[in-house]
């Protein structure tokens, strides 16, 4: 069963004085359990694409079906619910709420989902990412690598069907980068969660069997590039 189905997807954003088509994807499909890396230059719309997949940004045209839910025309409040139930999201930076402890950050990942938040589950996830000894710590007391591992645990807290990772290793040193990537892939595999990861780092992309150059997907960027020539 495809987790992501796209047909003639367009996303137009309003920038001062003009409307800019940032996404134009004729067709794309991702099967359940796939682990895909999207790569491409900065500004090619990779993050915007993830935001559209997560239901943060509404699409302008076409068909976007994620986890069996058509997002086109879906009201914002329903997209919020959809995100809370089916999507896990890892950002490059600024992932954690600083005023909340490690365990609370993970619990927050369950809070808005229809599933009941479970302390035991949160503890188990933190155990899986190797942070069971840091439950009551605050983000500022952790290293970048540890913070990103908490973010991984939080992204999986709502038992998502789809995990979106936007440059998850962008701020990490090589050792932590490798470790966090391994963790994300392993946990996704264990939990049966589909992974779409965005990166521009070659060493990260090389680890994936399925790596898609985003430029081949997004025709909007190709048009922009041609216009700029």
């Amino acid at each position, binding site marked *: 069963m495809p987790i992501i189905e796209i047909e003639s997807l367009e996303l137009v954003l309003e920038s001062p004085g003009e409307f800019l088509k940032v996404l134009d994807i004729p067709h794309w499909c991702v099967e359940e359990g796939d682990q895909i890396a999207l790569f491409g230059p900065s500004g090619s719309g990779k993050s915007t694409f993830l935001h559209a997949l997560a239901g943060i940004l509404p699409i302008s045209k076409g068909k976007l079906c994620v986890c069996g839910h058509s997002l086109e025309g879906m009201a914002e409040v329903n997209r919020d619910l959809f995100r809370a139930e089916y999507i896990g999201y890892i950002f490059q930076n600024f992932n954690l709420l600083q005023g909340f402890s490690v365990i609370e950050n993970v619990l927050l990942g369950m*809070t808005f989902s229809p599933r009941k938040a479970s302390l035991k589950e949160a503890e188990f996830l933190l155990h899986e990412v190797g942070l069971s000894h840091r439950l009551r710590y605050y983000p500022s007391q952790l290293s970048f690598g540890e913070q990103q591992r908490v973010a991984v645990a939080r992204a999986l807290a709502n038992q998502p069907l789809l995990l979106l990772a936007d440059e998850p290793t962008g701020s990490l040193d090589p050792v932590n980068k490798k470790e966090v990537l391994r963790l994300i892939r392993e946990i996704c595999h264990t939990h049966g969660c589909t992974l779409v990861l965005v990166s521009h780092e070659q060493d990260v992309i090389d680890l994936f069997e399925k790596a898609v150059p985003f430029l081949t997907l997004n025709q909007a960027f190709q048009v922009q590039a041609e216009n700029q020539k």
Partner: protein
Amino acid sequence: MTFCQIVLRSLQQHRFSSILAIVSMALGVALLVAVYSLKEQTQKTFTQIGLGVDAIVGPKGSPLQIVLNAIYHLEDMPGKIKWTYFKELEKDPLVVEAIPFCVGHSYRGFRVNAIDRRFLTEFEYLPGKRFSFSEPEGGKGRPFNANDEAVAGWVVAKTLALKVGDQFNPVCGVLEGDPVHEKDALGIVGILAPTGTSHDRAIYIPLEAFYTLAGHPPETLAMAEREEYREISGAYLKIKRIRGGALHPGIQGLKFAINQSDRDQLVIPHEVLPRLFDIIGWVDRVLLAIAGFLTVLSALFLFFALTSALRERRRDLALLRSLGASRKTVMGLMLAEAFLISFLGGLLGLLLGHGLIGFGAHLIKAETGVAFSAAYLSRADWFVLPGVLLLGLLAGLVPGIQAYRLGILKNLSPIS
């Protein structure tokens, strides 16, 4: 995590500004509660005491001055009335009880009033309450029986450390420097149990003793011997009541008749006291205005605290949104914080306000003899908390709307 846990965590994260907002709100509320309570209790107390005396017959002059002097032991009596006139009035079918008194003496700052003995034994200073000398109630001794005996009110005895058996020489007058009755030593034979009224703030001597004090001129002594010469300062009157406890409507006719004379007048404290509150009412109004201003100011402070907290928390709220929190939820978080801060501020203010009254009650009682209760619930106690909560919600509304409008992407990691 529950919604409440997130709210509490956020407050904890901004604990300094949250505590400041709570404290500033509490101060405004405390002042409001204290002023309101004192105002209401003062009015109630004064009215109650005034009701103990249905009417006062006294000389011509300011009715308010007569009430203040006769009941609250303040000011001076503007003159005297004839004893014979009083005796005649006493027979009026509307007059149930009449207690004559003479004022004009003092002892170390407290008034010494000469009064009919029935005042101590039969007079009800509040409905159903008579003066007591019972030791368990705080009194001691007995009523006076002779002209050289006196009874001290509870506050006087406590303040001047007077005991049964002590002697004192009254001052002829109420001002500092007035002559002392050196040859007239009066013995304390009783101390009244506390009544929580102004009656606790005077010393009582027999009415006849007033005329026989050695220091007085012969004309005054003659008043003791011949009733037709005798004068008194006034008399407390209990008036016949009709069904339901209201004063007999005939009192207005009696008042009109008495007030026709050149020398005497009938004063009804119940009618006069509101004038006193009109006079001193501006103090309440100013204090209430200050308290109201403080409360509104604290709401403004809360508004700025929340707005500044929102600025710091844009990323946090955007992250919550990315985790699936709806716009209504993040707006609700801001409103709930405002609500909680206002609730805690209001609650603390209520406790503080009552604490202030409790603390001040001792001082006020020592100074005036009037008892205030910290447990008294004034109108402010009912409206202040809902009012403060409403203010708090209003203060949280703008930050709440800002949180509602917050864009997720603008406040998260940069778009590649």
